[in-house]
């Protein structure tokens, strides 16, 4: 891994997949995030509502994203986020693609999600800058792992 290469890849915009897996149609928040990420200079890929965890991983790999941002407001985050992580591992992409979570996530669940590799886990009202800088940090880590 040469230093020149790293410098070059950091010039490229962060590619991020925004997804609301499973049965959850609350898409207002995800549009707000999509706009904020775009305005922060990221390339935001949004595949529409109701993708399955399998579809999320397929898209993330085809699009070679740096970060998957998943959000759930329906309480099924422990099941679904876990499934996403399992599939990511199965495809050997867990180091190359960072997974960041959000939604209505009880305080008690956050450490459990962190443990399986889903970081952030921001709730409603989190300042946008906090989310964006966390994503930048995770994207950088993922890129460093890539090559």
């Amino acid at each position: 891994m040469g230093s020149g290469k790293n410098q070059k890849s950091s010039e490229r915009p962060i590619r991020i997949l925004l997804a609301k897996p499973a049965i959850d149609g609350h898409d207002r928040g995800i549009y707000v995030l999509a706009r904020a990420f775009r305005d922060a200079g990221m390339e935001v890929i949004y595949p529409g509502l109701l993708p399955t965890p399998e579809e999320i991983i397929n898209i993330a790999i085809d699009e070679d994203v740096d970060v998957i941002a998943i959000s759930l407001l329906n309480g099924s985050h422990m099941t679904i986020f876990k499934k996403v992580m399992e599939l990511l591992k199965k495809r050997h992409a867990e180091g190359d693609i960072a997974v960041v979570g959000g939604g209505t996530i009880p305080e008690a669940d956050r450490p459990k999600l962190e443990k399986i590799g889903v970081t952030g886990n921001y709730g409603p009202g989190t300042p946008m800058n906090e989310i964006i800088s966390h994503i930048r940090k995770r994207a950088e880590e993922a890129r460093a792992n890539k090559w």
Partner: protein
Amino acid sequence: MGVEASRLSEGLKAGDRGSIARCITMAEDDPKAFSKVIKGLYDPKKIPHVIGITGPPGCGKSTLISQLAPIIAASGHKLAIIAIDASSPFSGGAFLGNRIRMEDTLSSSSIFMRSIATRGAKGGLTASVMNALITLSCAGFDLVIVESVGSGQADFDILNISSTILLVLAPGLGDEIQAMKAGTMEIADIFVINKSELPGADQAKRSIMAYLSSQQGKNTKKVTTTSCVSKHGIKELADLTLEHENGVDTAAFISKAFGTEVDRIAKELMSKSIDKLTQGNAASIAKMLDEGVDPYSAALELLQKLEK
């Protein structure tokens, strides 16, 4: 890195999606390493043909592609889709939303799809698409649908590397058709009036046919109507597209596509050296304008200084 390159080569050859996706990124990040990966796999004769699909925003390009792609793939082609969306000139970010309309098709088939942002830079888009085409060729793809942003220079550049060009329009876009006349209308091979379930579709078709018949020379362009709601005309459009594709001279297509691209890269490099050569001009320009020299004579004098 050495191990990585050979692993990626193997992956490309086997058509592994992760390797294809990673190589497209690699071509942008690290062309040197990328050239190692494709060594032995790259064959200029196997560059996939490109079906360029363009048209004004909201005319249904993505939806149309989602219905067209499976039919084309079923006819025996190894097909991929590249969808382009505009980057913000302010933030450099982009919202890549073409998958919203295509996800059903993509998840039920093995068609590879990649979203590409225009990234502002002039000509940079064609470079990204070229990188993807070369990668896909190494993985055995022979046909790629490229969905374009619908207007401007970037759009035109993409159409320049297409073997078949579809211009998608919708009823009620009278003014857009006017705007399209300069450029896209001339180079489109097939005109598609989409959303034919809406009133005005026949009128739009007639106005295009009238436009085409007013052009000089033999008219080989096709005009057709489609509806993604009723699926009317989709199969016919796929047939027309494949028919045109079959008539494409591969050698001519490749030399045109690559010729355009090499020319563009060369010009970009030249413009960089021109920038370098003219770095000190600002001072002499200010001086000449101060002295009351007219702009034309001033520019001429700068040119003469450069040629010396």
